[in-house]
C-alpha cells in the first residue's frame, strides 16, 4: 500500500472534499416528506377552532415555499456541505487575522448540550443554574475589563457595538444634548463605524500616521467638538499595532463631554495585561466566540458581551441577571428608565454560548487567562520574526516602537512587484493546501495585505507548517506563477468572475430577492 509521504511539512497531496451539491430548493420534490406531522386530537382542534394569533391581514395567502425532502436526503445534503468547509477543526487556523480563531474545547460543547432543552419562558426557579452562570459570567467580565455591569444579550460583535452606540445615544437623550457624531479609526473593525451609523450617527474616521500606524492626538482634536457623542475604537487595531497614547485620546473626548467605547471583540493579547476601564473607557464589549473560545458560528448565534461603567448601567438592555442573596432572577429594572436602550434582541442572550465561555474561564482561572495572552503574543512574535525574514514579506509602521501584539498585518508588495502575484492570488492558492488565509478588511489600506493571528492554540510545529506552506507558495510565485494565477486547483470551486461582486444591483441577499432579480 502506498503511504503518504510526510517528509515535507507542506501538504502537497491535499484535496478538499468536493460534492457537486445543488442548493436545497433545487433538491425539493413535491410531496416528499421528512416528518409526517400528526393531526391534533379532536378535543384540541375543537378548543382552538377559529383562534389564531396572526391577524387576518398578516396571514399569508400563498403556500409557504419550503423544500420538500426526506430526512436522509436532508442529512446527506448538510453533511456534504459541512465536508466542503475549511473550518477550524480541519486546518491550522492561523490565517484569519483579527478573528481569534482558537481551539474551542469539545468538552464545553458537551456541557452546553445539557441545557439545549431549556425554554426561555421557563419559571426562574427551574433555571437557577444557568441564571447563576449568567450572573457569574457578568462578574468575570467586569473583573477582566474593570467595568461595573455586563449585558449578555447582544448576539454578536456588531450587536455589541450597536449596544454601545445605543447606550451613547441613550445617555445624550437623557441629558437632553443633541450630539450626532462618532469618531473611529480606519484600522478599527468596520462595524465600529457601521453599527453607530445604523443607530443614526455620522461617522468620522481618523487616519493613521504613516510612520507610527496610529492616529495622532492633534488629528482627533481637529475634528472633535460639541457634536462629538463618542469615540469607538479597537486597540490594538487590525494591524496588531497598539496605540499606547489611547488614554490621552479618551481624556480629550471626556474633556469635551463625549463617551468612549472600546471594541474588545478580540482581547486575546490583553487578558490580565490591560483593562478598558483603567484606560478610562466608559464601556467595552467582548466577543465570546473569539477571546473566550465559544466557537465562531458564521453569523451567530454568538454573544457580544457588553459592559459599562456604573453611571451607564441604567441604560443597558433588559433584562440583566440579578441575585438577591438567595436566588437569581431576571432583572427588568432598566426597563423603567424611559431613556434606556430597552432590548437589542429577543430574550436574554444565547445561553449555550455564555455557558461555554463560563466553562473556559473557570477551567483557566485568572493566571490561565494571563497565560493565554502571553502565549498568543509569543506565538505572534515568533511568527512575525520568521515571516519578516522572508524577502517577500514586509510590514508597515516598523519604527522600532511598534511591536505587534497578538496579530499582524503584513504586506506582500515586494512579491507582487517581482512576480505579479498579489495577496488575493496567494489567498486562493493557500486553499490548495487546506489553509485559511486572510487579506484585510476593505478597502485595502496597505498594499497587498496579509493578516495573520496564531492565537495561543498552535504549537511551534503548527506555526512552522503554516510558514513552510507560505514559503512554498512564494517559491511557486517566482518559478511557476501560472499555477497561482489559476488557483485554486484542489478546492471546492475554481475561480469565479468577481467583476460584478461589488455591484449592488446584482446582489441577492435572500431567495426572494434572487427570484425577483433573476427569474421574474
Amino acid at each position: 500500500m502506498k503511504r503518504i509521504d510526510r517528509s515535507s511539512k507542506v501538504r502537497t497531496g491535499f484535496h478538499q472534499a468536493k460534492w457537486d451539491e445543488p442548493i436545497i430548493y433545487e433538491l425539493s420534490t413535491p410531496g416528499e416528506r421528512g416528518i409526517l406531522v400528526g393531526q391534533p386530537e379532536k378535543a384540541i382542534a375543537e378548543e382552538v377552532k377559529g383562534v389564531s394569533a396572526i391577524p387576518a391581514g398578516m396571514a399569508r395567502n400563498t403556500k409557504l415555499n419550503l423544500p420538500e425532502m426526506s430526512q436522509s436526503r436532508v442529512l446527506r445534503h448538510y453533511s456534504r456541505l459541512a465536508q466542503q468547509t475549511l473550518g477550524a477543526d480541519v486546518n491550522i487556523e492561523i490565517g484569519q487575522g483579527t478573528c481569534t480563531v482558537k481551539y474551542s474545547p469539545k468538552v464545553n460543547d458537551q456541557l452546553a448540550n445539557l441545557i439545549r432543552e431549556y425554554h426561555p419562558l421557563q419559571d426562574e426557579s427551574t433555571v437557577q443554574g444557568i441564571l447563576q452562570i449568567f450572573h457569574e459570567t457578568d462578574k468575570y467580565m467586569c473583573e477582566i475589563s474593570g467595568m461595573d455591569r455586563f449585558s449578555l444579550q447582544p448576539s454578536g460583535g456588531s450587536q455589541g457595538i450597536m449596544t454601545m452606540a445605543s447606550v451613547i445615544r441613550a445617555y445624550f437623550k437623557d441629558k437632553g444634548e443633541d450630539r450626532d457624531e462618532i469618531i473611529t479609526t480606519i484600522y478599527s473593525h468596520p462595524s465600529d463605524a457601521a453599527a453607530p451609523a445604523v443607530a443614526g450617527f455620522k461617522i468620522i474616521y481618523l487616519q493613521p500616521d504613516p510612520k507610527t500606524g496610529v492616529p495622532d492626538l492633534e488629528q482627533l482634536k481637529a475634528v472633535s467638538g460639541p457634536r462629538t457623542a463618542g469615540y469607538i475604537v479597537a486597540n490594538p487595531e487590525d494591524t496588531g499595532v497598539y496605540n499606547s497614547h489611547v488614554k490621552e485620546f479618551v481624556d480629550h473626548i471626556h474633556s469635551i463631554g463625549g463617551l468612549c467605547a472600546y471594541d474588545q471583540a478580540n482581547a486575546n493579547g490583553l487578558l490580565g495585561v490591560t483593562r478598558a476601564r483603567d484606560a478610562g473607557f466608559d464601556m467595552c464589549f467582548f466577543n465570546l466566540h473569539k477571546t473566550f473560545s465559544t466557537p465562531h458560528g458564521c453569523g451567530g448565534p454568538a454573544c457580544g458581551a457588553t459592559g459599562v461603567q456604573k453611571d451607564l448601567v441604567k441604560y443597558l438592555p433588559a433584562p440583566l441577571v440579578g441575585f438577591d442573596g438567595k436566588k437569581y432572577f431576571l432583572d427588568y429594572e432598566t426597563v423603567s428608565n424611559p431613556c434606556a436602550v430597552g432590548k437589542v434582541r429577543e430574550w436574554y442572550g444565547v445561553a449555550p454560548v455564555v455557558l461555554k465561555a463560563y466553562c473556559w474561564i473557570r477551567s483557566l482561572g485568572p493566571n490561565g487567562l494571563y497565560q493565554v495572552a502571553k502565549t498568543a503574543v509569543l506565538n505572534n512574535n515568533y511568527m512575525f520574526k520568521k515571516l519578516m525574514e522572508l524577502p517577500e514579506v514586509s510590514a508597515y509602521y516598523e519604527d522600532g516602537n511598534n511591536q505587534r501584539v497578538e496579530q499582524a498585518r503584513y504586506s506582500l508588495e515586494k512579491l507582487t512587484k517581482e512576480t505579479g502575484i498579489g495577496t488575493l492570488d496567494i489567498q486562493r492558492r493557500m486553499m490548495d493546501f487546506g489553509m485559511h488565509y486572510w487579506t484585510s478588511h476593505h478597502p485595502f489600506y496597505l498594499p497587498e495585505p496579509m493578516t495573520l493571528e496564531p492565537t495561543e492554540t498552535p504549537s511551534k510545529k503548527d506555526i512552522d507548517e503554516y510558514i513552510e506552506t507560505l514559503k512554498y507558495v512564494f517559491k511557486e510565485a517566482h518559478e511557476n506563477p501560472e499555477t497561482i494565477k489559476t488557483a485554486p486547483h484542489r478546492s471546492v470551486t475554481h475561480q469565479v468572475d468577481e467583476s460584478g461582486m461589488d455591484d449592488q444591483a446584482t446582489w441577492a441577499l435572500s431567495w426572494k430577492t434572487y427570484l425577483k432579480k433573476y427569474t421574474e
Partner: protein
Amino acid sequence: MKKIGLIVNPIAGMGGSVGLKGTDNTAAEAFRRGAIPRAGDRAKSALSELLPIKEELFIYTCPGSMGGDIAEELGFRTVVKPEASDGAAKAAPVDAGVLPDPLSKTSAADTKSLAEWLLENKVDLILFAGGDGTARDVYQAVELSACCVGIPAGVKIHSPVYAKNPKAAGLLALLWLTGKVSMTQEEEVLDIDEEQYRKEQINTRLYGYLKVPKERSFTQNRKAPTPLSDAAAIDSIAYEAVRQMEPDTFYIIGAGTTTRGVMEILGLKNTLIGVDLVYNKKLVANDLGGSELLSLIKGKRTKLVVTITGGQGYLFGRGNQQLTPDVIREVGKENIIILATKTKLAALSGQPLLVDTYDEGLNHSLCGYYRVIAGCGETIVCKVSDN
C-alpha cells in the same frame, strides 16, 4: 466571432531608453541617439496570450508597424484599415525626413483616425500599445464608447488604463473576450507635461477616462477591493454632498468622476474635466475659466466641491487650474468640500492630500485637517499639506 482593434504606437518608449523622458516631439532625437523601437515587441507579447482563441478572432488594425505586421506574423485573421499605407497616411511634421520609414509616418493623428475607424467597425475591445500620450490620443477618439486595454510600451505610464505588463494586458483581453470578466470601469487617462518633466518637474494632469475591463489584478494602480463598486461609492458620496447643500449659495463643482456624481444626482449637465457652477441646485454655467468664475462668485456666499485628481492626491494645481488662487481665496478655506472614495484615499495610505497652486502663501494657508466626505454620513479625516 470577436473583433479586436489593435493600435500600436511604434515610436512609444523610444525616448526613455536614451534618457529623453518621453517621446512626444522627440522621436527624431531619440532615433539619432540610437533608440530602438520596442513597442511592437511589447504588443506582440500581449497578443500572444490570445493565440489560444485565434480561430475566434478578427484583428482590425492598420497595415505595417501600427499593428498589421504583428497580427499577421502571429497568424491572426486581420482586417486592415483601407486607404492606410504602411504605418499611416500622414507624417508627423517634426519627425518627417529624419526617421527612416516606416516610423516616420506615424503621428498622433494616425492613432486617432485608426481608433475612430475601429469604433465604426464596432470592435469588442481596443488593445493599444504606447504610453500616456497614446492613451490621450485614444481617449480623444473613443472616450467611453468602447472597452479598451493599454499595453504598456511608453516611457511615461501614469494612467491606470494600462495593464501592469504586456502579458497582463493580453490575459486581461482574453478574460474579457471569453466572457470571464463582464464588467468595466472608468480609469483615468493621465499625462504629465513632458517639457516640464525633462526639467524634472512632475505635473500630472487628468485628461479623461477610458473604459477598461474590471479585473483588478491586471491593471496598473491595482485597486483594492471594496464592498461597493466605485460607481455605488460615488453615488453615496454625491447623495451626502447634495444633502448638505444650502440654499442661496453658489457651489463650484470641480473636475473628476466623483464630483460628476453630484451633478448627476442634481440632473445637471457636467464638465468632466472642467469646472461648473451651481446655484440653488440649478446650473449657472458649465466649463468656466478662472476669471469668469471669479466674476460670478465675487462677494457671494460660495462653496467649492473638489475631489483628488491625478493619482497623487492633489486637491489643487493638477488638472483644475481654473480654480485659481483668487477663486480659492474668494471661497475661503472653510467652504472647501472635499469628496473622495475610500478606495482612492486608501491608495494614498495616509499620505497627506496636496495643494500646489502657484501662490505659495495660499498653499500654506490651506494646510490642516479636513473632513473628506467618503460616503453617506461618513467622513475621513485627511491632512492637507503643501509639500
